[in-house]
């Protein structure tokens, strides 16, 4: 799939087939994640890949933003200690958030390229997930990405037009 087709074709999928994702595909998706850019190459991220149905159910219990039954969930975390050590306060408070956002987009585009739907979810209990997975204090779960083979793919939502949001300077 061409990059631009992946970018335009990806949708937020909230209805999944009852079908597991082969491990090779998950590994490929995670490889895409770690190749995303990061400020000062800090890579202050950690990813927890959850495939087990019982654990997925536990996450769902505390995640009002998850719909359908995903085959896997990636818990995208920031490593605040590493971010601070390598990039100071700016890294800890701002840049690391940008970095995991770019990694998350890589995850979703790579998934789409492999025929796997995804949805980024922030509506979850951060403290709940932290305790469920016994995460250390400095590891902050920031985003859940649900993955699975789409049962239904939503129509593209309306985009704000290029002329509305892009401003060519001195053109």
């Amino acid at each position, binding site marked *: 799939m061409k990059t631009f087709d992946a970018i335009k074709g990806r949708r937020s999928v*909230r209805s999944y087939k009852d079908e597991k994702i082969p491990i090779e595909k998950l590994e490929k998706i995670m490889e895409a994640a770690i190749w995303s850019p990061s400020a000062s190459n800090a890579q202050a991220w950690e990813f927890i890949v959850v495939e087990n149905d019982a654990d997925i159910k536990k996450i769902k*219990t*505390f*995640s*009002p933003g998850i719909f359908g039954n995903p085959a896997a969930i990636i818990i995208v975390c920031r490593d605040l200690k590493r971010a601070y050590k390598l990039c100071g306060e700016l890294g800890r408070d701002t840049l690391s958030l940008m970095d995991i956002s770019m990694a998350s987009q890589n995850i979703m585009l790579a998934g789409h390229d492999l025929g796997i739907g995804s949805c980024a979810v922030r*509506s*979850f*209990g951060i403290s*709940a997930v932290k305790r469920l997975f016994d995460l250390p204090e400095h590891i902050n779960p920031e985003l859940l990405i649900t993955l699975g083979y789409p049962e239904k793919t*939503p129509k593209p*939502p*309306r985009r704000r037009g290029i002329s509305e949001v892009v401003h060519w300077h001195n053109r």
Partner: protein
Amino acid sequence: MKSSTGTIDKGQLRSDFFNLLAFLVTSARNCVEEPKLYGPFRLIDGASRLIGILEQADIADEFLVEIRKKIDDNKYSVMGDKDEFIKFLDNLILDFVDKLKSTGG
């Protein structure tokens, strides 16, 4: 959720309500910071989840099943079309009013 003898499986019911309550509690916390429209969205999604539990327990009537289907078909309009979402909620209220009038309640 009913056993072979027709009685309600209390263990399953307890588990379903636990999940619903965890959903409500987590939603309450997250609504502090989330967009304003997520509040009504969580409430209506909670209504759908509650009807789902009633369905499993064989308590929901046809009206409630229909309401749950309407909610599930329309709730995502909150993501893209606020006016459509509000209209859907208004119509849902009227469904309850009509039901109340038809039963003489």
